[in-house]
């Protein structure tokens, strides 16, 4: 059954995405670890970490696209789940430092020591175990999303109202985590990690392994997401995106549908955050900033909303652009990036992937709808009211 579920989501697009990911998972380790450094095919560890970071963002974008593209929930607070997942991982890494901290306290992280904490707060218990931390990576964002969604969906909060309260959520978390009293290192966050699962976090092999793990997580999430979308549940999601009450009158309990997708998405975001932290080496409250969530929305929009692969593409491209331009045009890059966003909306209303869709739509298609007469993708009338 599980197999069928995964197969269901496997269309041509998924094939391409998974092939690329599989290629990355193989080629990148080879090119970094075994290809000699002077070869043009050598990849520096720096590049690997960078790519790993992009793929974490891609996973976040994928998660976001699942709820935004397919259930119409524009989350302006998805970074909250990402960051919580990151903190769960960060707490594990922090505990792994053990007595190697500057104060040499085997129990307490440094920031607790210099603020005179004497014992580990209860919510840090268990984070010295990887399995526990890994569980929390899913459970904390998942539980928060579930609780939040349960109330919000049941109260029928929709549209901008929902968007804004997700923003309020992440903003509140931002302020809360800034406070030193929260016990998460305040503004400075968690950093100075030493090792993960016993391996030196800065070692090349560890970095490559983390990268491969990220690719795997992304591929798995992609398969889950596209399986969900292809299922009837996915169709219900799309249906309720535009006509929720109609779906309800048909007997579907739309709240639980949204809750399912929302929680699933939050867990994915949590995983993305967890993989992000060891690769960038720090997690701090600024990740909660509303702007980070908005940026994630923008990756999805740039890549193409409601396409899954678009989110991935958008996240990677935008962040690559950001990395490049902040170095190459440090004083002007915002013009470039801002201009890019404007241009994408104006000229590629369906994102980069939509462009691809527009091109292929012109050619005869060979999937199942092609057999039917009259099949055509209809464009909305320019004047018509949109969703």
């Amino acid at each position, binding site marked *: 059954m599980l197999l069928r579920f995964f197969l269901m989501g496997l269309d041509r697009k998924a094939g391409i995405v998974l092939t690329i990911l599989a290629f990355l998972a193989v080629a990148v380790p080879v090119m970094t670890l075994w290809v000699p450094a002077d070869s043009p095919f050598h990849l520096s560890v720096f590049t690997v970490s960078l790519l790993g970071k992009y793929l974490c963002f891609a996973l976040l974008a994928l998660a976001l696209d699942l709820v935004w593209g397919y259930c119409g929930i524009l989350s302006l607070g998805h970074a909250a789940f990402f960051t919580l997942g990151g903190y769960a991982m960060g707490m594990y890494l922090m505990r792994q430092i053990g007595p190697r901290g500057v104060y040499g306290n085997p129990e307490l992280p440094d920031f607790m020591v210099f603020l005179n904490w004497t014992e580990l707060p209860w919510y840090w218990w268990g984070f010295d175990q990887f399995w526990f931390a890994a569980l929390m990576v899913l459970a904390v964002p998942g539980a928060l999303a579930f609780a939040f969604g349960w109330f919000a969906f049941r109260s029928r909060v929709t549209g901008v*109202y929902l968007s804004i*309260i997700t923003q*309020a959520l992440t903003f509140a978390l931002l302020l809360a985590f800034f406070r030193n009293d929260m016990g998460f290192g305040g503004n400075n966050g968690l950093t100075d990690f030493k090792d993960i699962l016993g391996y030196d976090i800065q070692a090349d092999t560890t970095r490559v392994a983390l990268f491969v793990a990220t690719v795997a997580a992304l591929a798995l999430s992609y398969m889950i997401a596209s399986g969900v979308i292809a299922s009837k549940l996915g169709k219900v999601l799309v249906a309720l995106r535009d006509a929720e009450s109609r779906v309800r009158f048909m007997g579907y309990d739309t709240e639980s549908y949204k809750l399912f997708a929302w929680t699933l998405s939050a867990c994915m975001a949590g995983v993305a955050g967890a993989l992000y932290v060891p690769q960038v080496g720090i997690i701090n409250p600024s990740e909660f900033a509303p702007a980070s969530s908005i940026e994630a929305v923008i990756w999805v929009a740039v890549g193409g909303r409601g396409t899954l692969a678009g989110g991935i593409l958008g996240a990677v491209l935008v962040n690559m652009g950001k990395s490049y331009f902040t170095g190459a045009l440090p004083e002007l890059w915002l013009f470039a*990036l801002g201009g890019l966003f404007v241009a994408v909306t104006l000229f590629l*209303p369906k994102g980069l992937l939509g462009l691809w869709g527009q091109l292929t739509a012109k050619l005869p298609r060979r999937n199942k709808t092609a057999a039917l007469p009259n099949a055509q993708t209809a464009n909305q009338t320019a004047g*018509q009211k949109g969703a």
Partner: protein
Amino acid sequence: MRRALRWLMALCVVVATSTAAYAADLRPLVQALGSGGYSGTEKALAQLSEAGDPAAVPVIEALQAGDLFVRKADGTVVIARRAGDAYTLTDPLTRAALGDAPAAAVEKIRINNALRRAINASLGALTLMSPDAGVRRSAADAVFKSRDAQALETLNAAIAKEQDKSVRAAMEQARAAILLTSEAASMMTDAEIQAATDTLTARGDRDALVLLNMVAGSGASDITKRSAAAAVSTLEQKLAFWAALQNLWYGLSLGSVLLLAAIGLAVTFGVMGVINMAHGEMVMIGAYTTFLVQELFRAYAPGLFDLSILVALPAAFLVSGGVGIVIERSVIRWLYGRPLETLLATWGLSLVLQQAVRSIFGPTNREVGAPSWMSGAFELGGLTITYGRLWIVIFAFAVFAALLVALKRTWFGLSIRAVTQNRPMANAMGIRTARVDALTFGLGSGIAGLAGVALSQIDNVSPNLGQGYIIDSFMVVVFGGVGNLWGTLVGALTLGSINKFLEPYAGAVLGKILVLIFIILFIQRRPRGLFALKGRAVEA
């Protein structure tokens, strides 16, 4: 011991009066101001005010204003006023002109906070007899603050002579303050203490409370202590009442700031449905316009600086509105019917605008000054109200009322609403939707610009200005109910008040977190905001 003190005091009084006779001989004291660094100046100042000669007043005032210099050549203390590159020197006592001197030839007598305090105290004591009632009043206040026992005698004399009721009251309060705090208190009769206590109770502010508390805890007789304690408790009640009112005022004024920041968004987002992430930048542009207008005033009409804000208002409206129209015509208009994409485009625009301002004006804060009618504060009963805030409250309400009228009572407003509710149909009805759209977006942006003028008075004028308000603005509009102006008004005021209500208990940080949680919970109760539109009309 006590007797010795009393004796000493009497002596002081004698000395004080007798030195007055030798008023002409202030010169060495004035001269002493210029040597010995801060402590030397302070010592000389003390002697100068002890001398009690009003002739010293201009000297001390010059010292306060930073106009007192030492001529390096001969060490003479002079008053020097800048005239171009050089200084014009005058004699501090005789006011005789002493010619000009280059900047390098004189050295300013510097003062620090301790000196400033001493100057205030001595000026207070010395000007109690001034012919100008205003001066006497502030002198009395200064004495009240300094509680300088030396001033007591002059104060008594001044009270005896004083005709102006309110000035006299101030003087009596000052006297009561001195009596109760100085060593002399222990020698006063109960009746005297009682009288002083009453005077202070009548004053009724926190300073009085502190003094009364001292009496209540002092070594005075039980009766006085008790009556002081009673006075303390009535005063405390009164102050608590005023404090609550004051908090309400803070809520109102914070609410007005939120309202101003949000109201433009209530047009572009609330009415037009554009998720306008560049709203904050429109506010910022308004603030920078204010800066530019003020620069012009500083350069060409410094005398009229107080009017700069009045000129900045229309200017900011036009500039921000103009930018808004350009944005609408070039970008937004392609996006109607795709509200989510407006988020992406306006976010991009906000990055561009921020960076543009950063490139043009630099990344640092720019100074926007407050006109005199917007600075300072006044007391209203037990409330302290700053002029700046008061004007912002008034202004916010005025903008709100004007917008309300424009949207609800004019043809333009009707077209705006028709266009935003059903653009193609409005067009088919003969409404020029393109023009209406551009003007509406321009209106919203222009109002954001107006907000920028107001915010420049209380906040940074930097490229980040807008970012600071964008989230709050969205919260307010959504909390109040999208598309409902009254909702924006009530939402802003509610959030402002709640914030200010929580702040004293929870602290600013937790208070803010609680407000956010409140918004989240509130939206659960009212999923379409405070002033939700109900009925089929909305669902359709």
